């Protein structure tokens, strides 16, 4: 597993497509309304949105993420970094912020490689 994270609009997906020679057909786009485990495509994009969907569906986030890790093979997870701003007033967004952090820690631990994108420039952090 490979984790690619960074702020929004930093070029994460573009980097993954180019580096691994993949196309849009290899990408599963997570949705804030779909709590099912992301389909088995090479790239799972918008992992943070899936976390929000899990929270909205009142599911246990970490066990869902754990199940995802167990059933996914050689997957590239792309996640927006939502950890650095002001604590949100909205309790659901507050929970989202924290659960995304915990989920990212799990994925990061299981990944062979972790990359952060900043203005389209990758930095390998693991």
């Amino acid at each position, binding site marked *: 597993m490979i984790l690619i994270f*960074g*702020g*929004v*609009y*930093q*070029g994460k997906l573009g980097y993954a497509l180019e580096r691994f020679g993949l196309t849009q057909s290899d990408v599963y786009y997570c949705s804030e309304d779909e709590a099912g485990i992301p389909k088995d495509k090479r790239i799972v994009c918008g992992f943070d949105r899936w976390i929000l969907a899990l929270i909205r569906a009142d599911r246990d986030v970490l066990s869902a993420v754990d199940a995802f890790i167990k059933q996914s093979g050689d997957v590239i997870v792309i996640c*927006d*970094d*939502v*950890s*650095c*701003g*002001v604590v*949100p007033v909205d309790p659901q*967004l*507050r929970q*989202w*912020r924290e659960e*995304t952090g915990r989920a990212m820690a799990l994925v990061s631990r299981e990944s062979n490689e972790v990359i952060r994108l*900043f*203005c*389209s*420039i990758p*930095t390998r952090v693991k």
Partner: protein
Amino acid sequence: MRVFISGGCKNGKSYHAQRLAKHSAGSGRPLYYIATMKPVDSEDDERIARHRADRRGWGFVTIEQPQNIEEILKKCDTVGSFLLDSLTALLSNEMFTAGGEISENAAEKISGGLRQVIEQIPRIVIVSDYIYSDAIKYDPLTEAYRKSLAGLDRLAAGRCEVVLEAAYTQIIAHKGGGVFDALP
């Protein structure tokens, strides 16, 4: 040497940007500060006056350019060293007009000007703000602003030889960091 520097607020971006621009000017070239803020009240006026006084000791000549950034090419000697602070303010000024209207092609317009500026000015430090890592679901307008700023950041970062991120006064070099290490 063209430098792009971003990071969170109060992380030392402006201070490091001033050092880099000053260093680039060497002993003979003009040193320009491209001021982009458009004052809206007396608090802004005071802030600007304070910043201006701070910079005076550094030898900066201040050029007010809150819009139409390419016009600095006509106003200044392009052989000089420039500090452009910041893309964030430029985008606000072009996007949110005085009449309260939203200019949808602001980012495109600035991109055009910025490309010319970067191409024709070999010594420039460009400052922006990293506003991409929080857990807020923004309204479409704010989201469009973030997306537009990220586009400008990436354009500038792609064309600059040096890309830096300020982290609580420390510097993370994403590209060409040797230049920063060599500063006195």
